[in-house]
């Protein structure tokens, strides 16, 4: 469990104290995949670096598994850091060491295991990330996705309970991003590891995260379960991210709204109801007619959802909306 309690981080910029981050209260539960999303400069990387104290808070407490990390003595801090793995946007592998040597590096630093034990562990880790045959290559000989897999193997070497991911998929192409996210998701499930994932891609959050915090201007502006935040964004920044991830242009959408007649409604189907022929049923029963303004069917982690923006004309629109609500569909009247 990770807890931020009244945390502030300020920097001196040309003699002036500038607030970079202010988080009153934020809790990340054990075993969950927690997303932190925001534009660049929103303070999400700073927040992540507070967990293993790569950044020290100017004020407040960061409590990890019951320990206030800001109070650790240097030797304690080093021991504590070994229990936390970290992966990076640019992988940060040592170019002078082979894949196997890179993965062995944190174990050598810890200095608690024999050479044979380290070799065995490295083999096991490389098998886990599917890179066994590349053990003796140098990072420069690998693709971006493979480099990040080495980064993940290295981060897991000391059997951490927490994995910090700093924009780990931002330098990868969409397909590689998906496979790396899949790997993180598997690791979370199989090892029960808590994962904190910083990203500016809402898509990454949608794929793997259980809960998410949206950051803007150094503050957490919205937090909650991913399905909640995704389907019912409240803060403007969150809305922007959600629209972006759905490839919807806000202005285009507004324009199509103007052309639409009647009552404009957004219906959100989640889980089971996604696959039921509800729309047809209700439309027939209430005698309404509709046109589709926007629509999307996808998954949030493993839960399927569908979201349709419709304009209803004719018939008993009120009865139709009530029927949708009764069937467990989320109804939002836009106009």
């Amino acid at each position, binding site marked *: 469990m990770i807890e931020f309690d009244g945390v502030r981080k300020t920097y001196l910029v040309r003699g002036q104290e500038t607030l970079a981050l202010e988080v009153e209260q934020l809790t990340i539960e054990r075993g969950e995949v927690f997303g932190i999303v925001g534009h660049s400069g929103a303070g999400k990387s700073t927040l992540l670096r507070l967990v293993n104290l790569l950044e020290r808070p100017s004020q407040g407490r960061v409590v990890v598994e019951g320990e206030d990390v800001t109070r650790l003595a240097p030797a304690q801090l080093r021991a504590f850091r070994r229990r936390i793995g970290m992966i990076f946007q640019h992988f940060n592998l040592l170019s*002078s060491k082979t894949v196997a040597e890179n993965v062995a*590096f944190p174990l050598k*630093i810890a200095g608690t295991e024999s050479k044979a034990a380290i070799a065995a562990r490295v083999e096991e880790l490389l098998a886990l990330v599917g890179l066994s045959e590349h053990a003796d290559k140098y990072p*420069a000989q690998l693709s971006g996705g493979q480099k990040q897999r080495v980064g993940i193997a290295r981060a897991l070497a000391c059997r951490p309970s927490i994995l910090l991911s700093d924009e780990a998929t931002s330098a990868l192409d969409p397909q590689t991003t998906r496979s790396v996210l899949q790997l993180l998701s598997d690791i979370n499930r199989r090892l029960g590891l808590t994962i904190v994932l910083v990203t500016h891609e809402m898509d990454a959050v949608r794929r793997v995260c259980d809960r998410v915090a949206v950051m803007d201007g150094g503050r957490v502006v919205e937090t909650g379960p991913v399905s909640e935040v995704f389907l019912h964004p409240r803060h403007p920044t969150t809305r922007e991210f959600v629209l972006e991830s759905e490839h919807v242009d806000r202005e285009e959408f507004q324009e199509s709204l103007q052309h639409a007649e009647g009552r404009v409604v957004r219906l959100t189907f989640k889980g089971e109801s996604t696959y039921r022929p509800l729309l047809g049923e209700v439309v027939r029963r209430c005698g309404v007619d509709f046109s589709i303004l926007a629509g999307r069917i996808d998954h949030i982690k493993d839960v399927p959802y569908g979201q349709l923006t419709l304009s209803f004309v004719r018939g008993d629109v009120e009865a139709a909306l009530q029927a949708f609500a009764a069937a467990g569909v989320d109804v939002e009247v836009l106009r």
Partner: protein
Amino acid sequence: MMAQWLTNVDWLEIGRACWDTLVMVGVSLFFVVLLGLPLGVALFLTGKRQLLEQPLVYAVLSFVVNLLRSVPFVILLIVMIPVTVVLVGTSLGVPGAIPPLVVGGAPLFARLVEAALREVDRGIVEATQAMGATVPQIVFGALLPEALPGILAGVTVTSITLVSYAAMSGVIGGGGLGDLAIRFGYQRFQTDVMVITVALLVVLVQLLQMLGDRLVLRFSRR
């Protein structure tokens, strides 16, 4: 005509001078690396926004390095004479040239090491820190191996500088090819000796650069 032109050249003497130059450069390079590497690491670590940021220590180290580097080597040769006598018992010949060569070369090499370390991606230091590494573990495990090609390039530059410094030490009776060039080529107007020694120095520098480039390539994994 060629044979006539080279009448002044005593090849045995040239051979011995070559060897002396190699010894001066080799021995002084050893000490330059021995002193300059830790000095360069210290400059890097105590520098701004680095692992052991210490503005005062950095300022002092930096000042001393700049001071030594701003003294022209010919002057350093002369100024060093009393110190050299205390250290090796003489200020002449091959041994007498080595202390000033070390004092002249170490600050240059330290700066080159500092620059090579600065070229290492900060992310690598951060990743190593995140593994719970101590500062020595970061330096020996990550920084120095990552900076090795840059440091080897620095050794190459320094060794070539030491060749020209070693030749200059001939001015105060240092020995080697420089000594030969001054005593015969310059003072006795034996132009052929001068040409040969300079040609040999050119060859030596070319060889050192080639060797250095190969080593850098051998250890570059990027």
